[in-house]
């Protein structure tokens, strides 16, 4: 098969492929930088937990209004923010650390979600919520995903500096009276927003894949937050394009295909990454003599 047929034609021939592609690119724009900050804040698994926490909200929205984009998104958003806020409050008010309190709440949330879906919906519905269907993304979802990406980039630009300082030297921000908590909360809201955006396309289970895998891979290639973010976005783009093509040509489900391509790039980065990859450590280049 010629390169045109392999790489270009699927997108030109089918509008659902084009929409899926645009959704992937928009998702990568928002999720890339958010993932980078999650990695740097050592909250990589928090994205995973939050993506599960969204489930009961989305399920409730689905039950009340069927396959309504807005109902499911709003439900997911409310459930995600509730879990994030409760976990934050409990970790500050008790001896539990944030990861433990988050684990508690997201598991409760997930169980409620599964309960709702299995009691009221069919297995097909559950599969849809869990795994999403990027090939069924319609214009309304596209607008939602693109809006969330836009909001994410604007808000991140506004709170970029304090987020970095809070991560690098939390005592300093407090010493100069910077008020770290407000930025932390704004950031958590962005995480939940992006997961809601991702679950439209990839489902609650896979949404976090486009967030964490490109960010973790980027960490092995760059040494500044903005370069990390750009690389994470680029890896997200590549995963979206390649994942959709693989899914098209081999007739595979698109969500896992996209996430697996991102995972492949992560594995390659682990081995050959220029900043602390395995190759660098086990096959060091000769050191300078100057």
């Amino acid at each position, binding site marked *: 098969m010629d390169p045109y047929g392999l790489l270009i034609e699927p997108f030109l021939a089918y509008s659902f492929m084009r929409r899926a592609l645009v959704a992937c690119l928009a998702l990568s724009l928002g999720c890339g930088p958010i993932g980078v900050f999650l990695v740097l804040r050592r909250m990589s698994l928090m994205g995973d937990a939050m993506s599960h926490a969204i489930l009961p909200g989305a399920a409730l929205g689905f039950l009340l209004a069927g396959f309504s984009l807005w109902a499911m998104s709003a439900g997911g958003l409310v459930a995600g923010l509730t879990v994030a806020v409760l976990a934050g409050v409990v970790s500050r008010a008790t001896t539990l650390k944030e990861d433990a309190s988050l684990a508690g709440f997201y598991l409760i949330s997930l169980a409620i979600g599964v309960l709702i879906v299995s009691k009221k919906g069919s297995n097909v519905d559950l599969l849809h919520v869990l795994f999403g269907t990027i090939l069924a993304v319609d214009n309304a979802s596209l607008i939602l995903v693109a809006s969330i990406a836009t909001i994410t980039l604007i808000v991140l630009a506004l709170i970029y500096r*304090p987020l970095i*300082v809070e991560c690098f*030297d939390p005592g300093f921000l407090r*010493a100069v*009276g910077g008020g*770290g908590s407000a930025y932390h909360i704004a950031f958590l809201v962005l995480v939940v927003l992006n997961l809601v955006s991702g679950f439209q396309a990839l489902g609650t289970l896979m949404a976090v894949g486009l967030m964490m895998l490109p960010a973790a891979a980027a960490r092995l290639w760059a040494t500044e937050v903005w370069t990390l973010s750009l690389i994470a976005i680029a890896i997200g783009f590549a995963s979206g394009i390649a994942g959709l093509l693989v899914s098209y040509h081999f007739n595979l489900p698109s969500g896992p295909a996209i996430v697996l391509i991102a995972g492949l790039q992560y594995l390659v980065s682990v081995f050959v990454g220029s900043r602390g990859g395995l190759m660098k450590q086990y096959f060091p280049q000769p050191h300078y003599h100057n």
Partner: protein
Amino acid sequence: MDNGNHHAQQLAPFHGRTDEASHRGGRVGRPLARGRVGDTMNFAPVTRHDEGAISIEDLTVAYDREPAVHHLNGRFEPGSLTAIVGPNGAGKSTLLKTIVGVLRPDDGRISVGINSRRQIGYLPQQADIDRTFPINVWDTVALGLWKEVGVFGAVSADQRARIQQALATTGLEGLGNRPVGTLSVGQVQRVLFARLLAQDAKIILLDEPFAAVDERTTADLMNILTRWHAESRTIIAVLHDIEQVRANFPTSLLIAREPVAWGPTDTVLTGENLARARALSHVWSDGHFHSHTTH
């Protein structure tokens, strides 16, 4: 129970993680007389006499009700150069963090003679910093301009020159683009000193500035301290090297949770006082161990 104590009890278990913004907002310029027990800090209307001074009245700071600083009274004079000395877990870092406003007093009060928070510079222990974070030297030093530049402002040509100057003074010229993660402990300490230089603060608090730093770096950084002292800034440093304190610091505060002695260094660091501090430290290190109290 009065209001202040109530506050303190509620907040004691989550020290350092409390919402600093909420309780600090609006404190600036609040009259000294209205400050309550339990307030973090009062910015009194500054008179000439008080500018750069730090007054401490009956200060107690506790972790889980276990006091790390217990009933401390005294005053850091404007332009003084004071070393805080004491055994591990004596509350030295806790005292600094409380002055900075990172921790809250459980009892008593600290009044800092400054008009804005910008005028306090704070050097944390290196363990409190994520040294693997991807940030370069220049950006780290530029953080010193936080109060001028803020969350979204640009760095002016004038401020650039100040950063460049700070890098030159600390011997970091040409290292601006290096990631902090690739530096040695001594170089990171130089970076943090450069940040303080850029901040140009009236009061400078240093938490173990020479820990794990080699002799040459210590000498270079001590020179900067001496220069700050000559510029009549108020400087407080937590230190462990008694000889270094005797050689360079005119004033000392010896604490072991309880204040042991405070005044001219030669009257404070006597064998008798040091022995008393050690004896006091056995009470908490032998009796029952609290992992939280060593901060």
